[in-house]
């Protein structure tokens, strides 16, 4: 997993809990890299899960909630650092559709060895989008947060239903129903 996710996760934690708390939590969690991450590096996903669990234990917030919060945080980060991806997009659906079709294409150009999740989209009706997230990583809530933040970013409101895709491991379907814009 790209180092930038780790760096931003710790940044969010610092923002929420303060540096001292982050220092303490990291020291306690048994991390292979000693909690030292660089945005250009690559680290195993398990460490990310460990960090989330450690902060969950520390704060009493569920790991799922923390992942969702982190999804919001990352959407802000993307908007700030990669505004080009948001240009020419007029709705959250267009943005979500672009993840597989545009953004990951660009990511692979820079990092040919990146293991990217798949996001298949399907507009099932007026204001309805089905997004199937396929990844061996347990980051469903993180994706949930990202989708929520994306809807907000385009000044829309939506109901998001999550269900495990039947007969398919490591796959989750998000049903997004736009309720207002």
């Amino acid at each position, binding site marked *: 997993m790209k180092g930038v996710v780790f760096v931003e996760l710790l940044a969010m934690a610092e923002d929420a809990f*303060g*540096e*001292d708390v982050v*220092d303490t939590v*990291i*020291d306690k969690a048994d991390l292979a*890299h*000693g*909690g*030292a*991450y*660089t*945005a*250009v*590096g690559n680290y195993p996903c398990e460490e990310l899960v460990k960090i989330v669990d450690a902060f969950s234990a520390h704060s009493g917030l569920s790991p799922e909630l923390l992942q969702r919060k982190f999804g919001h945080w990352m959407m802000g980060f993307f908007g700030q650092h990669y505004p080009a991806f948001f240009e020419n997009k007029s709705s959250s659906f267009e943005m979500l559709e672009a993840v597989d079709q545009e953004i990951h294409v660009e990511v692979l150009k820079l990092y040919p060895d990146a293991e990217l999740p798949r996001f298949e989209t399907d507009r099932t009706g007026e204001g309805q989008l089905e997004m199937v997230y396929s990844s061996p990583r347990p980051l469903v809530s993180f994706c949930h947060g990202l989708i929520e933040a994306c809807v907000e970013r385009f000044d829309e409101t939506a109901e998001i239903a999550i269900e495990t895709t039947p007969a398919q491991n490591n796959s989750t379907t998000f049903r997004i129903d736009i309720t207002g814009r």
Partner: protein
Amino acid sequence: MASEQDDRVSRSRYEREKAARKEAEALLEGKSRELFLANQRLSEHSEILERTVTERTSELRIALDKAEAASAMRARFIATMSHEIRTPLGGLLGMIDLMYGDETDPAKRELLEYAKTSGEALKRIVNDVLDFSKMEAGAFQFENEKVDIRALIGGVLALAAASMPGGESRLRSSISPTVPPIFAGDATRIRQVLANLVSNAGRYSTEGQIELRAFASPHEKGALLRVEIEDQGIGISAEQQKDLFKDFTQVPNKLTSAAQGTGLGLAISRRIIEGADGKIGVFSEPGVGSTFWFELPVEVLETTQPSKNNGKTKLREVKAQVEGARILLAEDNKINQKLLLTFLKRMNVNAELAENGRVAVEKFAPGKYDLVLMDVAMPEMDGLEATRIIRDSWPAEKIPPIVVLTAHVLDAIHEDSARVGIDRVLSKPITFGDLRDAISEELGAHDTPDHHTPRQFGSRPAIFVHLSNPILEGLIESMSENEVIALVEEFVIDARRLLAAITANLRRGEAEAAAAEAHALKGMSGLIGALGVSELAGQLEQSAAYLDADSIEEVIDALSGQIDKLDRALSSSTE
């Protein structure tokens, strides 16, 4: 928060950041190295690619050069071979003709007929292949000369009639007055197309009229000539028409079992016509007949004379321009002398005769003549040599136009002529009209004579039947019928004398001398239109070197027979 109380970060945070930076730097270094190596591979790859492209390009160029050279060599080989075959083939066909003329046994005559048909077919193939290879080699060039389509059609039909059973009565032509008398074009190529279409019409039909029609309509270039050749033969299905003008295709012909040719005739015709910006095509219905047509935009050099009067006025103008001109005629042959001097006299020209090239050089002086007419083959000094000496001896502006008269193969003479500085080449047989036109043009008159549509003769002397029509017309334009008869009489005497000389030389084995005499005989018989004699003499000229004793006797007998025929016709003409 800790940071608000103390600006310093914790030791563990510092260590973490240091470790992260170190890792980032290591990663960066690794990436730089990777980038460098990738770039290096890319350069190598592009270098190899460039080298490969260069190699391939040069390989391709070599292959192309080889292919072109091979193709050129093949074209040259075919052209040379075809040309080489033509000469002995001419001899062969001539011999067959002679044998056929003498043979009385019907069975043998039939065999000879087959031999002749096959020989003619072979000749056609060789000619087609030669033309085709010239076209393929891009060596096919169009001449731009004056074309008299009426004379041309007359000639083509006369030849076709001779080689087609019942030809005389089957061939008909009608030429509309809209067709310009003279236009610019390549007479040889137009003749070839006409001959091909007429010969096809004959080969693909056993009976019925073959009609040749020509007319013209206005066109931005001058006129659009349209010629149609209609037969009542086996016809061509729509399916077959598609491929008709493609290379090496032909319609299966049930009419004859003999060799049919290469299937190149129409392809060549198409290339010729399209090469001259024209169109060629066919309408046909199986079992009813075919009409082949072509259209050719032509530049009109002379418009149709609306009335006879105009023509006469023009003729008078031309006469006035030619009249009184001083002309030196270098010609050794007695018949040609007589004929050309008569022509010149008719034009009211002051002609002076030189018996050969040497005499011509002696007689020539600047300002003495307005024009020189020079035969090529003459004893002591030939016309080309004489021209060269005259050109070398006097400044160019003091030399009048020099016109060469020849019965030789044209291309070679044209080349030689250009080298020695000859202004114009006239090919024998030369008609009165040709000569007058040439003289008037070379003298700068730049006017055009009138051209008659073929003249109808009332009761004609018997001898005229044996003479070629266009040539006879030329003769009658300048002489009375009696004068023509007198000329033929003189020709017969001269031809006998020449034939005796040829016989003597052949028997002595002096083939070269015999060939030269045969050439002279060909020239003078061509001049008066005795085409039978001319043809045989031409064959003799070509084949003198390799004839055996038996064949010699046969050719001489045949020639003698032809001359006798003229003689007999003369006696009945003068009675």
